[in-house]
Structures are given as C-alpha cells and as structure tokens.
C-alpha cells in the first residue's frame, strides 16, 4: 500500500493535508493521534470509502485513484474493520461471513461455509455460527467482523479503532486475535488508542495531528520518547488521563470542532 500526497477536504475544511505513507507486505503500522486529526478519514480514503480530493492511493499494486481501476476487485482483498463493527443484523454469523464470498468471489456455498468456519475457529467463535449479531457481545461481534474480512482472503487489513466501543474487559480478546494475525504476517494498518498493543505488535507507529503525519518511527521511540511537543502532550493525556491539571484544560483544540454550515450539509445532505 502506498499513499502519495493525499489531501481530503470536506467543504472548505481540509482534513488531510498531504499524507505520504507506505506500508510494505507483512508490516504492521499503528496510527495514533488526537480525535479529529483525520485518522479515520485517512483509512477511509485508503479504500476509497471517501474520495480523496487529490493525491494517489496504490493498493495491492493497483492505483485505485485511477478512474479506470476496478475498485470493487481490489476492495474484496482489503479487509476493513470498523469501530462500530457494522455486522449485517439480518444475517447469522455464518451468513455474515459467506455473503461476500459467494456474491463477490463467486465461491460455492459449501466452500464459503468451510472458509467461514475455519475463520470462526480462528477467532474462537465457531460455536456461535448460527447466532445473530444482536445476540453477541461487542467483543464477539468485533471478532466476527474480523473473521468476515479474513474470509475474503485479504492481503491488507485496515482497522479503525476496533476496540474503542468495547467494554474494557472485552478489549483483550479482540487484541489477541489481531496479535495472532500480525504474527502470521498479515499486513495491517491500525488506528488505535491501545498503546500497549502498538508497542508490542507494531513495526512502526505514526502520530497524526491536524491532518498531517507529525512523527513516525518504531513504537518504542514514538510512544516512549516522542520528539515533538504535540506528540508529547497527546501521549501524556492518553497514558496519564488522571494527571491532567486544571490549568491545562482547554489548552488543546476542542475534540470535535463544531461543524460549520457547509460541513453540516455535506454530512446530512440538503
């Protein structure tokens, strides 16, 4: 995966201000940074859920920003795991895992189910194949979502804060699955606030702020001894949330700037 000069604006609000990023096969890259810094937007631009304003995105050797590229073919082999899971509520766990295999890859039902069961075993949920998503805990749903992506034989996995909407005691199961994946050599780009995971698993950590990559390097360096003041402040706040002095409050940008009218309309349609 290679991103060059990526810019993205919503209305006149520039969210990504020229991102250059390359992830080589087998590499695990973690993206950290304050809320609103554009991490999600970056991930969504990578598989074109969001159309970049300018710049190029090359995925699995295909320039998908080229209008002639078949984005669906590429996407089929790029897994995406969302903060909100986004399982299909009208399908069973097995149905969630087989749908795209059959409709996109053209696998037979039997083959798709075999692949699905293998991946469910992988995430430790083979016994829940006939359950509906609403019957599962958040942690189980997220593992099903990962298994759903894995069933498509992905060559790159994108994770957008996969554990951020989970109860604390369920985070570990999901991280364990991701750790396994990394150990098996899966190429991964992970937006996360789990610093321990980033330290332990990633080959490289990227600190983003205000739509740009501010700092990057090995986890030990970026998380352990950040060079820039912005990264230092961010990490202090994440790692020691109870130590924020009253005097420091309001020192940083508000977390979610109020949308101006144009952005609001873009979000909600007119």
């Amino acid at each position: 995966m290679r991103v060059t000069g990526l810019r993205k604006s919503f209305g006149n609000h520039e969210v990504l201000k020229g991102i250059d990023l390359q992830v080589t096969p087998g590499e695990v890259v973690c993206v950290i940074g304050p809320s609103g810094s554009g991490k999600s937007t970056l991930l969504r631009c990578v598989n074109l859920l969001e159309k970049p304003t300018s710049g190029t995105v090359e995925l699995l050797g295909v320039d998908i920003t080229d209008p002639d590229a078949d984005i669906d073919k590429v996407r089929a082999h790029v897994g995406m795991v969302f903060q909100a899971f986004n399982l299909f509520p009208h399908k069973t766990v097995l149905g969630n895992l087989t749908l795209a295999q059959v409709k996109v890859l053209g696998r037979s039902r039997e083959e798709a189910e075999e692949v699905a069961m293998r991946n469910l075993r992988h995430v430790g949920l083979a016994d829940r194949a006939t359950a509906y998503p609403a019957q599962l805990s958040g942690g189980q749903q997220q593992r099903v979502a990962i298994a759903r992506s894995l069933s498509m034989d992905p060559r790159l996995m994108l994770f957008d804060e996969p554990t951020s909407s989970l109860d604390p005691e369920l985070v570990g199961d999901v991280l364990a699955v991701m750790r396994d994946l990394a150990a098996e050599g899966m190429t991964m780009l992970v937006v996360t606030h789990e610093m321990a995971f980033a330290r332990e698993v990633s080959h490289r950590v990227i600190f983003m702020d205000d739509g740009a990559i501010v700092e990057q390097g090995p986890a030990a360096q970026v998380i352990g001894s950040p060079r820039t003041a912005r990264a230092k402040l961010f990490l202090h706040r994440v790692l020691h949330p109870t130590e924020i002095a009253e005097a420091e409050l309001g020192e940083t940008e508000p977390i979610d700037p109020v949308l101006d009218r144009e952005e609001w309309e873009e979000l909600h349609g007119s």
Partner: protein
Amino acid sequence: MSQQSARGFEDLDLRPSGRLSPRKRARVTRGVQYVVLLAAVAAILASVNWTLMREKIFTLEAIRNAAPNIPHAFGNTLLYTLGAFGVSLTLGTVLALMKLSSVKVYRWLATAYIEFFRGLPALLIVFAVAYGLPMTLGVRIPSLFLKAAIALGVVSSAYMAESLRAGIQAVPKGQVEAARSLGMTHSKALIHVVFPQAIRIVLPPVTNEIILLTKDTSLVYVAGMTLAEWELSKLARESLAEPVGGLTALFAIGALYLVITLPLGFVVRRLEKSFGKAKA
C-alpha cells in the same frame, strides 16, 4: 485539591407544599374525569329516539335487498385495492431510487412527481384517468380495474416513494460501507444488505398505505361502472336510493370496510411493536 467540609441536606425544605400531595391530587382529578364521562354517555343515551334509530340504521329488509351484490362489491373493493397497491409499490420503488440517485435530474424529476401528486385530490386523478386521457390523448384504458389501479396507484406512489426512501435511508450508512469494503458493487450492497433491512422499517407505513388505498377505492365510482364492477361504496350509494331502510346499507357497508381495515391496522401496530423490540 483542598479538603472541603462535606455538604449535607438539612438546609432543604422537602415537605409537600399544598394541602394535597401531588399523588392524591392526581387521584382526585382522575375521579372527576370519570364522572364527566359517565354524565355525557347518560345524556346521549337518554336523548336518542331508539325506534327511529332502529328503523333508519337497522332494517333487515334493506340488508336483504343489498345482499346479492355484497360479495362481488366486497371482492371488487379488494381487487381495486390490490391493483392500485401493485402500481403504487412498483412506481414508488422507482421513484424512491430516483430520489436517492446521484443524478440530479432524476432527483429533481422524482421530487416534482411526488409534490405534484401529493397536492392533488385522488378524485381529480380518477376523473383525469377515466375522462381526461381519452379526451386529450385518445388513450382509452380498457377496464375499470386498470383505471382504478392506475389512478389510485399513481397518487399513492407519491406517498409510497417517500416511505420507501425514508426506509432505505434509515439503514445505517455503516452497512453500505461494510458491504462495499467487502468488494460488493453498489447494487449488490443495495440488494443483499440494504433492502432486506429496509423492508422491516417500511412494513408499517406500507401497510398503512394499503388501508388508505382501501378507502380510496370509494372514489372509483366516478369513472362510471357496470353492475359487475360495483365496489362497496357504489353499492352503498345505490342502496341509499331504495325506499326502505334509510341508512342501513350505509352502516352495513361501513362495517365491511372495517372488516378489511381493522385487521390491517392491527398488523401495523404489531409490526411497529416487534420492530421496536428488535432494534436493541
């Protein structure tokens, strides 16, 4: 942080202030409401002339006169409703997809259609289809069934489109994104992920639309119909012209409409309740 003395509650006055506590007051108010209701019912019952009432709305002879026509009139009401519903659902789906299209002209056309037909009385459209089309375009629609289905369906589709669009849009955006990121095309995502979920959401409003259509079939008689084409309202009108029975036939036929619409209303409420639960 400096140590502060803990704050208690002794300084608050929490005793009830009026003569009656709020709960007692509510009980008295409820009692008054029941008394008013009973008085009103008693007054109505006392003021009605029961013999006259019985003669005007419950004369067996009038029902007997209308009886031979009731089965096919009832059947035709159902038939016209179904025909109109078919047209409404088909057109409504097309319009809803046009409204959601990324092509501006489609969106604009659909909006124009919807606003136009929502603003006109259905009766006018029945006239237009039955008399306007043959006079202006020379288009003669062969059967009353088709006239009813087209006229009522065209009007209903404007409402149907809005319900369907709302249902499709109520499916969370993340669902399409998940489907697309698995490599599904836009239409595959619609067919396999969005529509199955939208159907649950639109079932109540769509069932409501069937109820409205059932009642609107009472407008079709203005297109002119043969005895075999009568529906319930036409039968009621003809029965009113009979010398005996007064409004009896009207009441009987009103009851037949309810036989169709009440169960549908029941279904709507059940659906709304069960989907409310499934949301969790």
